[in-house]
């Protein structure tokens, strides 16, 4: 029995020793009574050292260990209580503390058997897992924020949808590699922003590109409208022109919006007369308002200083939009435009402008969105009243860009009031002079215009318009050519396109003013008044500008007012006297017909004339002077065919025949010197004109 017991005891012992989990028995006093090898290993102490010592001392938290131990005595056992054992050299081992009391045969508690399961690995794995989890979670978070950013970016730029999708995709990949994702997302945002920018650029460029052909379409339609047309043709052409005008308005609107969006809109600060400026602008609506049987009421606060500094063009644009809306949506009643001084201090005034109509009104629910792009009060509005829904968006942008505010009040069926306030600086300066309106009945024909313009269609259009005015014109393909022409020929005025290859309008003007010291009037031609730096135009010395599509009347007025000013009346008279009626003496029609407008042949013919005629003039004069009648006869004789070729009036042919007659008979001699002089002057004029013609042909056909 004792053998068996000993044997059993030995067996139990070897099991205990084999366990990797520390096993220990503690007596009721807490002292270690027995242990296995694992405990010795984990604490780094020998069995001898351990035996009889306080068990709790080997834990990092002895108090907690003691509590656990007391729980064992109280509840007979404890399971999986976490504690940490300390190696004598400091190494810590996490254990799960399991214990149960053991009793003698009488049931008296002898002590506690404790198994401390080593959970270091588990714990490490758990920690790692936890960390991994946290890492994963934060990664997800970053990725999500990246994704959100990218999605925002996608929203910002509808055009950039594709880019944003890439970004979303990139962001999803970033769930795995959060840092990369963040970076990619930032890239995506940047790309999206660039996409927005490029969208605006595209819009701006496109509008510009569309305008160029539109200018030609509208311009030539105008020219065509002036020719003899049947009623039907006139009707159709008018339709083309109206559609063209509408399209230009739309393009301008888009361009304006794109510009405001891009923050490129610039505002002038020029002194102007507010009252005059506004009433001139409202004048434009008179016909329209009369047509619709409406009444236009103007209320202008007399206390507003007469001259203010601001941007009259933009102010016009704002009021124009508001009033044209008012007119559009009002079928009966009146439109009130009132301008009131709201406040005034030393430097500036705040003015409230309001436009009130008695029109259809705007539903309350729509008041909030009425200023957004492409919004009209109801989707049916555009069907009924037309329009793009860009007008108010532009108005709002224009007002806010100048630090103003805009408000709308409206009641359906009663009407709307749009009001905005803007600040204007006060000034003592005089306002820039108003456009000189010249009576169009005053015929001024002998004006020589140099047009610097690179686009062939526009060249042709300018030619047509200027021919229509009866002005002489010459075309230069760029600024450089214009300067070359200016050096050899006298012109009265230059129309200068701003954007040209080789040398642009600014450079050319600067050269003409500074290097050539010429004061010739220069009008800038620009496709796009909004971007053009008017200040720059003035700085280089341009006298004025005109926007394309060129309004013929405006162009005519500008040319006349600029040309008239610097030329004293006396000199003008002089010119008339020496050159007779200086109408163009040549007519290329015959030559064009004969050569079938072949430019090379025409140029050959003209250069032959230019070569031969001076010799003939000399011979003619010489003949008269030397009384060498044969010589006079021959020279004049040879001149005769050239009159017909160059389209010079038959009057001169008859004069030449008279001279010829005289040379053979030598009668009526007293008239002859005068007749010869007339022939000389007409031939000289023809030479001058043909030279211009020659250059014109050359320049248009190079």
């Amino acid at each position, binding site marked *: 029995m004792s053998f068996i017991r000993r044997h059993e005891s030995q067996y139990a012992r070897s099991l205990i020793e084999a366990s990797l989990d520390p096993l220990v028995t503690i007596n009721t006093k807490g002292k270690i009574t027995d242990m296995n090898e694992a405990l010795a290993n984990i604490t780094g102490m020998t069995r001898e050292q351990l035996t009889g010592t306080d068990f709790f001392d080997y834990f990092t938290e002895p108090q907690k260990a003691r509590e656990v131990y007391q729980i064992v005595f109280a509840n007979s056992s404890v399971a999986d209580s976490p504690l940490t054992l300390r190696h004598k050299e400091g190494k810590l081992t996490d254990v799960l503390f399991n214990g149960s009391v053991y009793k003698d045969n009488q049931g008296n508690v002898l002590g506690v058997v404790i198994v401390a399961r080593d959970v270091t690995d588990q714990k490490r794995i758990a920690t790692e897992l936890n960390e991994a989890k946290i890492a994963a979670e934060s990664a997800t978070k970053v990725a999500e924020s990246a994704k959100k950013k990218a999605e925002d970016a996608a929203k910002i730029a509808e055009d950039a949808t594709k880019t944003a999708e890439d970004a979303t995709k990139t962001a999803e990949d970033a769930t795995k590699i959060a840092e990369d994702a963040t970076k990619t997302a930032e890239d995506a945002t940047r790309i999206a922003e660039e996409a927005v920018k490029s969208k605006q650029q595209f819009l701006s460029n496109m509008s510009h590109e569309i305008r160029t052909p539109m200018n030609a379409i509208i311009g030539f339609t105008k020219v065509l409208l002036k020719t003899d047309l049947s009623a039907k043709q006139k009707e159709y052409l008018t339709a083309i022109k109206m559609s063209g005008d509408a399209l230009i308005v739309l393009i301008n609107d888009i361009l304006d919006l794109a510009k405001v969006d891009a923050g490129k809109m610039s505002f002038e600060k020029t002194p102007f007369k507010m009252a005059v400026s506004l009433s001139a602008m409202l004048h434009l609506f008179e016909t329209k308002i009369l047509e619709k049987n409406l009444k236009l009421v103007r209320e202008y606060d007399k206390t507003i200083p007469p001259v203010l500094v601001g941007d009259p063009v933009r102010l016009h644009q704002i009021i124009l939009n508001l009033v044209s809306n008012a007119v559009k949506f009002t079928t009966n009643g009146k439109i009130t435009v009132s301008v009131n001084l709201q406040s005034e201090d030393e430097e500036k005034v705040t003015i409230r402008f309001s436009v009130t109509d008695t029109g259809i009104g705007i539903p309350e629910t729509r008041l909030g969105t009425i200023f957004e792009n492409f919004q009209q009060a109801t989707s049916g509005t555009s069907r009924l009243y037309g329009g793009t829904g860009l007008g108010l968006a532009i108005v709002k942008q224009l007002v806010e860009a100048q630090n103003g505010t805009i408000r709308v009040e409206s009641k359906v069926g009663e009407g709307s009031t749009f009001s905005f306030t803007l600040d204007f600086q006060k000034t003592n300066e005089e306002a820039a002079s108003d456009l000189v309106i010249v009576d169009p009945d005053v015929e001024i024909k002998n004006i020589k215009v140099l047009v610097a313009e690179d686009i062939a269609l526009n060249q042709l259009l300018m030619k047509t318009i200027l021919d229509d005015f009866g002005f002489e014109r010459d075309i230069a393909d760029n600024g450089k050519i214009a300067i070359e022409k200016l050096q050899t020929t006298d012109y009265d005025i230059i129309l200068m396109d701003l954007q040209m290859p080789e040398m642009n309008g600014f450079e050319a003007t600067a050269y003409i003013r500074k290097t050539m010291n010429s004061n010739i009037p220069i009008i800038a031609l620009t496709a796009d008044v909004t971007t053009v730096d008017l200040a720059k135009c003035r700085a280089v010395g341009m006298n004025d500008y005109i926007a394309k599509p060129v309004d013929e009347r405006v162009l005519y007025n500008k040319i006349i007012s600029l040309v008239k000013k610097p030329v004293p009346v006396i000199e003008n008279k002089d010119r008339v006297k020496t050159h007779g009626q200086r109408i163009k003496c040549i007519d290329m029609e015959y030559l064009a017909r*004969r*050569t*079938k407008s072949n430019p090379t*042949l025409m140029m*050959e*013919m003209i250069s*032959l*004339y230019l*070569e*031969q005629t001076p*010799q*003939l003039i000399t*011979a003619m004069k010489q003949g008269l002077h030397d009384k060498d009648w*044969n*010589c006079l006869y*021959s*020279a004049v*004789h*040879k001149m*005769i*065919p*050239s009159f*017909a*070729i160059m389209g010079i009036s038959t009057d001169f042919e008859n004069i030449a025949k008279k001279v010829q007659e005289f040379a053979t008979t030598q009668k009526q001699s007293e008239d002859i010197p005068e007749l010869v002089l007339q022939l000389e002057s007409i031939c000289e004029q023809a030479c001058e004109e043909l030279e211009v013609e020659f250059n014109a042909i050359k320049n248009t056909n190079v």
Partner: protein
Amino acid sequence: MNNNKKIKIFLVDDDALYLKLLAIEFLEHADFEIESYATGEECLVNLSNEPDVIILDYKLDGLDKNAMNGIQTLDKIKAFNKKIPVIMLSSQDKIDVAVSCMHHKAYDYVVKSETAFLRLQKAITSIYTYKKLEKQLNWYMERM
């Protein structure tokens, strides 16, 4: 005449402008070979080029007193080969001038005017009609 060859025309006039205009018109309207000369002398030097028709200005000595005039040039041409048809051209609408030209065996006399080219064209056509008739006549004569 050779039908495969273009008709070769000599244009002789000291008015360079008019000369050029004529040349342009001839080249525009029909398939001619044109040689232009400013003086009678130049024209004579080049007679070896075998012109089919010569259009000659009456007044070639207008500015250059020593230049050969139209009639003199006409005589020289006829001396070289009397079969070359010469059409005289002048801005003078005078009967005695025309008659004098005819006496010197010019084929025709055309006044420089807007219709000059049309008349020249007609004259040339009639030259060829005449030549053809002559040829046919010769053909029949041989067989008679």
